[in-house]
């Protein structure tokens, strides 16, 4: 980290939306039939009912373990740092500004006058208590997010984080679980039960959580953002089965459902009382590779696999053409996207065969994949099996149900490749660190995939200057792409459906809806 950056005032002055992000956002609007932004005057009131796909793993941000929790956590917890919906660039939240006076120090200035739902102050001391808890508590799942933090002090409105090494990813890390501020008083009083008795500083206050049934929240009348939130209450109805969830919206029992599969677009279009919206996300469908052992420790074989895949056809067949084909790990709308690496491997079975032969597999190769037994996943597997077969790669899949699938590949080291997804992180360095870092859980081989990778990874967190970071990510992604450490396929689109009375919703690049600006008609 070099020069001081990211003052709130500075952010707003330069907080323009980049061209490609603007195009992406407009695309989402257009697909929603122009109903997304041009929606009249926002009106407060009403109860928003959302069909949620999963029961929260916990309502304590520190102990939860599922990416699907965020949608339920955001309404109750405001974060220290927020992000721009279109680009995921950091912007002020509870922390009104932050500076880095030297490369290993980050100073957050906490906004004045914010209170938790229990009436206690959300000040620098509370922020420090939250961060220390996340770093040290035995039940914390996010210790590694704050792994570079050495010491935290609070003074006046400032919270100072002393770091072990430069870490420019921290601001965006503080827009995730680590930055969701909980009332220290409530945490102390509830102990382990805080999982089920959350007290944050967000737009809505927790009312009740019936496990696997619903989470109910009511408006926080003392919310610090003027005029927000608009809905009087939010209820998340837990409906894991997507078709059932969509039926609940069509029948008018719920108002909103998010992250549907593209195959459901036709169903939404047929329902006259429901609108839909599609937006880009960071959710990358990809084949993870265990490059720690033969045959995929051979770069030629990995490159052959990348050339063997026809991403455009995969998109058409599995996603109705609504997804974004890619050979890199960040979508077009993201600030660190590298256009020339997004189409690096074009479909070329002949070249794939040649590379296999160069790698010592002139008679083709047998690979075992690991993936899910769900219908849509099986469909994707069958497409890939057929595509790579044309290049002499005989791919078969071993299928599992639910979380054991991940364990089979990442912990038990079964299979050569793993067809799954990466849901993205607010700061892209975490994505790369988690997937390719030496010893990382999501790096099945656990080793360094390519020379210079670790150094390139560190470089992405060394400076807070956006241009410097972009250059560092370009170099890192180039190493990942050229050494074919992953087989990225497409970025899954965010497809949401909502009743006609819902207005003001905007999709975000993270693909995890926020409802602060949503208002209801009638």
């Amino acid at each position: 980290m070099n020069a001081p950056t990211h003052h709130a005032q500075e952010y707003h002055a330069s907080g323009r939306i980049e061209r490609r992000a603007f195009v992406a956002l407009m695309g989402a609007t257009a697909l929603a039939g122009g109903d997304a932004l041009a929606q009249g005057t926002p009106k407060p009131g009403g109860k928003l009912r959302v069909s949620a796909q999963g029961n929260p793993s916990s309502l304590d941000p520190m102990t939860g373990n599922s990416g699907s929790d965020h949608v339920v956590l955001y309404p109750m917890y405001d974060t220290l740092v927020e992000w721009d919906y279109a680009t995921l660039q950091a912007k002020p939240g509870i922390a009104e500004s932050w500076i880095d006076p030297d490369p290993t120090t980050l100073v957050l200035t906490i906004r004045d006058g914010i209170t938790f739902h229990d009436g206690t102050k959300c000040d620098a001391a509370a922020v420090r208590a939250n961060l220390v808890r996340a770093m040290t508590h035995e039940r914390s799942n996010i210790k590694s997010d704050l792994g570079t933090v050495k010491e935290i002090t609070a003074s006046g409105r400032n919270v100072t984080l002393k770091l072990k090494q430069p870490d420019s990813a921290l601001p965006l890390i503080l827009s995730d679980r680590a930055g969701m501020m909980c009332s220290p008083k409530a945490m102390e009083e509830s102990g382990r039960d805080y999982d089920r008795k959350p007290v944050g500083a967000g737009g809505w206050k927790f009312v009740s959580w019936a496990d696997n049934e619903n989470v109910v929240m009511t408006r926080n009348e003392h919310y610090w953002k003027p005029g927000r939130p608009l809905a009087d209450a939010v209820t998340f109805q837990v409906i894991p089965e997507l078709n059932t969830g969509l039926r609940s919206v069509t029948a008018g029992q719920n108002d909103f459902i998010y992250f549907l599969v593209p195959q459901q677009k036709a169903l939404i279009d047929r329902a006259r009382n429901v609108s839909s919206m599609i937006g880009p996300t960071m959710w990358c469908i990809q084949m993870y590779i265990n490059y720690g052992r033969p045959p995929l420790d051979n770069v030629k074989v990995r490159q052959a696999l990348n050339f063997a895949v026809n991403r455009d056809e995969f998109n058409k067949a599995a996603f109705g053409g609504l997804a974004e084909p890619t050979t890199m790990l960040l979508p077009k709308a993201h600030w660190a996207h590298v256009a020339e690496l997004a189409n690096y491997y074009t479909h070329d079975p002949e070249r794939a065969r040649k590379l296999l032969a160069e790698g010592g597999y002139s008679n083709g190769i047998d690979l075992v994949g690991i993936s899910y037994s769900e219908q849509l996943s099986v469909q994707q597997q069958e497409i890939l099996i057929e595509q790579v077969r044309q290049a002499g790669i005989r791919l078969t899949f071993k299928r599992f149900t639910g979380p054991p699938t991940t364990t089979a590949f990442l912990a038990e080291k079964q299979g050569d490749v793993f067809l799954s997804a990466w849901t993205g992180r607010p700061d892209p360095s975490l994505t790369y660190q988690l997937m390719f870092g030496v010893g990382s859980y999501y790096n099945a081989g656990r080793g360094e995939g390519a020379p210079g990778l670790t150094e390139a990874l560190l470089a992405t967190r060394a400076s807070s200057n956006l241009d410097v970071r972009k250059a560092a990510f370009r170099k890192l992604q180039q190493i990942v792409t050229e050494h074919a450490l992953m087989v990225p396929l497409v970025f899954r689109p965010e497809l949401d459906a909502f009743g006609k009375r819902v207005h003001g919703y905007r999709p975000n690049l993270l693909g995890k809806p926020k409802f602060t600006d949503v208002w209801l008609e009638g």
Partner: protein
Amino acid sequence: MLANHPRLRMVGRRLAQIVPVIVLATFIVFGLLKLVPGDVAATLAGEYATDERVAQIRVAYGLDQPFLVQYWHWLWNAAHLDLSRSFMSNEPVLDQILHRFPTTLLLVFCALLISLSVGVPLGILAATRVGSRVDVAVTSIASFGVALPSFWLAMILVATFSLSLGWFPATGAVRWSVDPRLAVWYAVLPAVALAAGGMAEVVRQLRSALIEVLASQYVRTLYAKGLSPTAILWKHGLKNVAVTLLTVIGLLTSRLLGGAVVIEAVFAIPGMGSMVVRAAIVKDFPVVQGVVFAMVILVIAINMVIDVLYTLVDPRVALK
């Protein structure tokens, strides 16, 4: 004195079965869950997994203990009515069960009621008109009901009566304790979908049992004595098939409890079925064990009630 009463002895025998059956059932389920691939510690770490964190969780939740030690801990706590907490949501399992059981019970009760109220008249109608068009129609409906997948019927019902006509809700449930009228209204469509197979089973069993009774020699004698067909059917025929009907009800109740798993998923009903399916997928042992524990008690209780009813309908059963 009371202990010598045949009916009480029978109840005592059923109660004595509870402990060994619970131990056996939960031990088998625990063993099967252990054989399922996957590491619950990795699941608990979720998207934030690191090798270190997974190892910490394994120790924290006692998952590093030997299989028998883990089972013994669960059993010991269960014996003290502590069914532990869900690994996933940290909610006490007993609370989860008490919260969800009434919803599933209402669904099963409604389905049983529909099965019997439709199945019994149709069964009688078919048995008293053997070989007629009515009999053919009823047996055809019954065969259709057996063959019909409940989830398919459920979706057809939702599309017609919820989405098109708007008469019933498409998803969800309301607890009996909150609003009994609304609870039944929400339960109608899922109960009909669940009852289709049960209704067919009642028809088929009742029809064949009643045909056998009505063709027996003592019924012929009753006819010879000049009793009306209605009196023969209601006073003698149905009384003799009551044991068969009770057996069907007992088996049907257990089957409906199992079938509720699918229907709860289609209608997004927060009941026991959906709970145990989700828990089994993520290997949430305490929840699965707790549900098995509750189910064993329920099934034994149902069997006990059926046995008692047997003795009321046919006192010879108790004497045997």
